[in-house]
């Protein structure tokens, strides 16, 4: 019997030791891994404020509210602002950027005609950067989100308060508090049910990390054992720091809010260090039950518990009586949920992730706590989203099934992507048409074809005459004939290259393409940034090539920037979780085309907007804003495209149906409409004149391509590369005003 009992004891101890060893390994590997697992945080561009900056008062206010700034007349704390007409006073929050730490600053400014004047800052800076709007994060698969805080960042009073409320023997016990367990046991026996837990901070941490919420004896025993093991392996400092970052404090959609750092942002729109007594007390109060004490859903309950916590802080001499009284009087005020951390722009975020994954792997992105600064302009993104929705809703009335759309906006000089929409619903994370919808581009290809010609000034100028006559191309595979038509079903003996592009004549373009040859056009397309295989078929000249809106943006970027290729990028800089710079994505320019040729093609695209298929843009735009662009409409109007630019912004818009069914829209009536309305709200600058000594302007008689005079009829004021001007004078009949006088005034 003794031997039997001895054997049982031995086996029990053996099993127990194996269990302990197993739990030890599980805990230490997971603890080390999870302890420092931080998602990457993604930010929009920081708004810079300075004298002469162009911004409207409503846009500035929008940005401040998106940042969670509170309106406050006395403006005594960071993250507040006040407004009196068009005058603002802003108490900015400090923030660590790639290049430096931007300190908190008090700024006053006035906005007059959408331009900042009388800019003054308390720290005497010429320029102040607001902290950037957080637009999302790259999370690990378990959807947890946190903002890391360290012990040294934590106010002592907060730590004391937390310990006093949750585990007052924390610094004295070994993971378990026998007195707490005893107290809880008595309460539970008296009530006949499980009411009170006697969990220490270590036990809570173990539960958060590894275990479920079930209240069984076995689960509790496991938790107790692991808490003891944790105390054995890690210091109190490490445990409390991990707890500060691990404790579950609520939900934001799919995202779980872990840690006081993130909770401060989520509930108050503030840094953890800036919390006041009543705010810190509320967060401590929520530890016991973040859903039950959710201040948004159960403010009364939350206030009651918060005041209880304030009482504990006072009775433990952590705060004074005066502080306690003052804190108790404060109402529960949390920021609206929309201002909290969320992936706000899923389509843009897809691009960010795509570009990041070219250099980082997903594990690093979702666990190293990187800070990613993007080029997103949230103001323009918001306006584009509203406009696309509004326009599509209007267009839908004429359709028998709903339309979809995509918008890509970039900066002309740098290739920075400032807005991106992949669908009519910006909030939905679905099929991103901006990045993934490959659609035939139609007439959007024409500038590339004519650029190929104009790159040979010895052979072609804007005045060169080309046929716009019927085309009949045999398909050698099946013997059928391709007989495309112009949009107006007309033909013309000859047209100028200028007119062919401005009015988007199909037949002339095919003749042009055949004369130039596929190889030359392919070279141009490659230099414009197209990486797809280019089919050597006549249909190429009418845009049978399929591209995404993002790829179209890449192509037009080179034209808009004056012939300089810049890589389209969503990311600006990346820093590590401790603020060390990791990478900066610089704006590299690579000259791909002679500025003279680009000048000519841009001139024709300017003409498109004033005289051609893009002229309806000026129903929405100021006449003084010079823009350039190209409309595109595919067969049966299945795709409505527009690509156009101002002096500072390039925009590409696509509208169509996912099932490729025809629409009622052309490039002009659809995509151009959206583009024009967005640009009208964008504070765009006019396209500037390209100052080249090698360009001359001449009045040219368009039907003949010969030199003329401004008072003759059918003339246009066209640029020529020196030495390629037309020879010969056209007879000047029917003296009248030229329709292209605006060119003359612009370029003189």
């Amino acid at each position, binding site marked *: 019997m003794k031997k039997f009992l001895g054997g049982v004891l031995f086996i029990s101890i053996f099993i127990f030791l194996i269990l302990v060893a197993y739990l030890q390994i599980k805990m230490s590997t997971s603890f080390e891994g999870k302890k420092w697992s931080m998602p990457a945080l993604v930010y929009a561009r920081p708004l810079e404020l300075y004298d002469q900056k162009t911004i409207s008062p409503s846009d500035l206010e929008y940005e401040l509210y998106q940042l969670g700034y509170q309106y406050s007349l006395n403006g005594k704390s960071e993250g507040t602002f006040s407004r009196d007409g068009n005058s603002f006073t802003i108490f900015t929050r400090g923030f660590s950027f790639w290049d430096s730490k931007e300190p908190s600053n008090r700024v006053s400014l006035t906005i007059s005609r959408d331009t900042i004047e009388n800019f003054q800052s308390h720290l005497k800076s010429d320029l102040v950067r607001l902290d950037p709007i957080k637009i999302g994060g790259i999370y690990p698969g378990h959807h947890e989100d946190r903002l890391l805080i360290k012990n040294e960042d934590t106010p002592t009073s907060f730590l004391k308060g937390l310990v006093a409320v949750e585990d007052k023997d924390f610094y004295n016990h070994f993971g378990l508090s026998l007195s707490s367990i005893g107290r809880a046991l008595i309460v539970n026996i008296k009530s006949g049910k499980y009411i009170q837990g006697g969990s220490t901070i270590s036990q809570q941490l173990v539960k958060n990390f590894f275990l479920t919420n079930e209240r069984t004896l076995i689960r509790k025993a496991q938790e107790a054992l692991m808490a003891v093991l944790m105390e054995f392996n890690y210091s109190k400092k490490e445990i409390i720091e991990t707890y500060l970052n691990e404790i579950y404090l609520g939900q934001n959609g799919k995202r779980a809010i872990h840690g006081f750092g993130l909770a401060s942002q989520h509930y108050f729109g503030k840094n953890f260090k800036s919390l006041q007594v009543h705010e810190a007390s509320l967060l401590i109060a929520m530890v016991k039950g973040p859903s039950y004490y959710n201040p948004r859903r159960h403010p009364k309950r939350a206030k009651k518990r918060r005041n209880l916590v304030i009482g504990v802080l006072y009775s433990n001499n952590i705060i004074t009586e005066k502080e306690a009284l003052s804190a108790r009087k404060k109402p529960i005020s949390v920021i609206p949920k929309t201002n909290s951390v969320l992936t706000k722009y899923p389509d843009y975020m897809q691009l960010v992730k795509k570009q990041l994954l070219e250099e980082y792997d997903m594990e690093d992105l979702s666990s190293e706590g990187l800070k990613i600064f993007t080029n997103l302009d949230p103001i323009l993104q918001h306006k584009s989203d509203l406009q696309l929705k509004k326009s599509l809703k209007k267009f839908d009335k004429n359709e028998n099934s709903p339309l979809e759309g995509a918008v890509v906006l970039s900066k002309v000089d740098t290739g920075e992507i400032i807005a991106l929409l992949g669908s009519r619903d910006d909030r939905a994370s679905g099929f991103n048409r901006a990045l993934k919808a490959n659609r035939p581009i139609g007439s959007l290809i024409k500038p590339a074809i004519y650029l190929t010609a104009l790159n040979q000034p010895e052979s072609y100028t804007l005045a060169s005459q080309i046929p716009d006559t019927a085309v009949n191309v045999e398909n050698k595979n099946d013997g059928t004939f391709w007989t495309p038509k112009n949009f107006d079903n007309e033909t013309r003996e000859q047209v100028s290259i200028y007119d062919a592009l401005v009015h988007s004549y199909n037949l002339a373009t095919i003749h042009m393409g055949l004369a130039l040859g596929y190889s030359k056009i392919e070279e141009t397309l490659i230099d414009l940034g197209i990486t797809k295989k280019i089919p050597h078929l006549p249909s190429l000249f009418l845009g049978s090539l399929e591209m995404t809106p993002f790829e179209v943006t890449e192509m037009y970027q080179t034209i808009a920037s004056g012939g300089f290729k810049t890589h389209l990028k969503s990311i600006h800089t990346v820093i590590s979780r401790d603020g060390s710079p990791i990478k900066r994505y610089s704006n590299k320019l690579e*000259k791909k085309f002679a500025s003279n040729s680009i000048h000519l093609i841009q001139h024709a695209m300017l003409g498109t907007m004033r005289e051609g298929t893009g002229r309806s843009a000026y129903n929405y735009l100021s006449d003084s804003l010079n823009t350039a662009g190209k409309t595109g409409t595919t067969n049966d109007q299945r795709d409505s495209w527009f690509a156009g630019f101002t002096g500072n912004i390039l925009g590409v818009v696509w509208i169509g149906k996912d099932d490729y069914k025809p629409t009622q829209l052309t490039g002009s009536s659809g995509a151009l409409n959206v583009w024009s309305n967005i640009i009208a709200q964008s504070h765009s600058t006019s396209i500037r004149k390209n100052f080249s000594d090698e360009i001359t302007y001449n009045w040219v008689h368009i039907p003949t391509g010969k030199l003329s005079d401004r008072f003759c009829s059918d003339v246009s004021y066209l640029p020529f590369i020196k030495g390629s001007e037309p020879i010969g004078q056209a007879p000047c009949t029917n003296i009248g005003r030229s329709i292209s006088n605006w060119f003359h005034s612009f370029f003189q």
Partner: protein
Amino acid sequence: MKLIIPLLLLVTISGCQSFRLKIESSDSDRQNQDSEISPDQDDTSSYDDDDSLDIDDEEEIVTEEPQKDPEIPPAAKSLLKKADDERSLQNYDRSEHYVERALRISPESPYIHFYYSQILLEQEKNSLAESRAFKALSLCEHDKNLKKRLWQLIAISRHREGDNQGSINARRKAEQYSH
């Protein structure tokens, strides 16, 4: 007397020949005028063998921050000052960063683009420097001195890349703005 007329004829013919030569050489200058993208055709017949870029020409480029342009707002100038401070410490990445921030405020300033091209040249990022210089040229309206310096910079960058013909063409362009 009998000799005077033939002599006169001889002088006249000789004069016409030299005049014709001048026209031809300036014509070939125009043909070989810089195309901006690629070096011109390898037509060296009109150039002297000694007509090569003197390496001392590099001394002509002195990096200066464009503080003097009155069109650059104070905010951009502050950033350019920081760019220059970083440049002097050879923290080029940070210097470029500040220049790019300045360019966001004044994207059309040829002076800031010129400054950027100089920083690139200092780092021997020659083709990037050249592209940036062309960008500055596209924005430069009246300042002949700036145009000259930009072409000089292009000449240096091409020389460093082994494009001697292109470098010579650029230097000639620069010389045009000396008058």
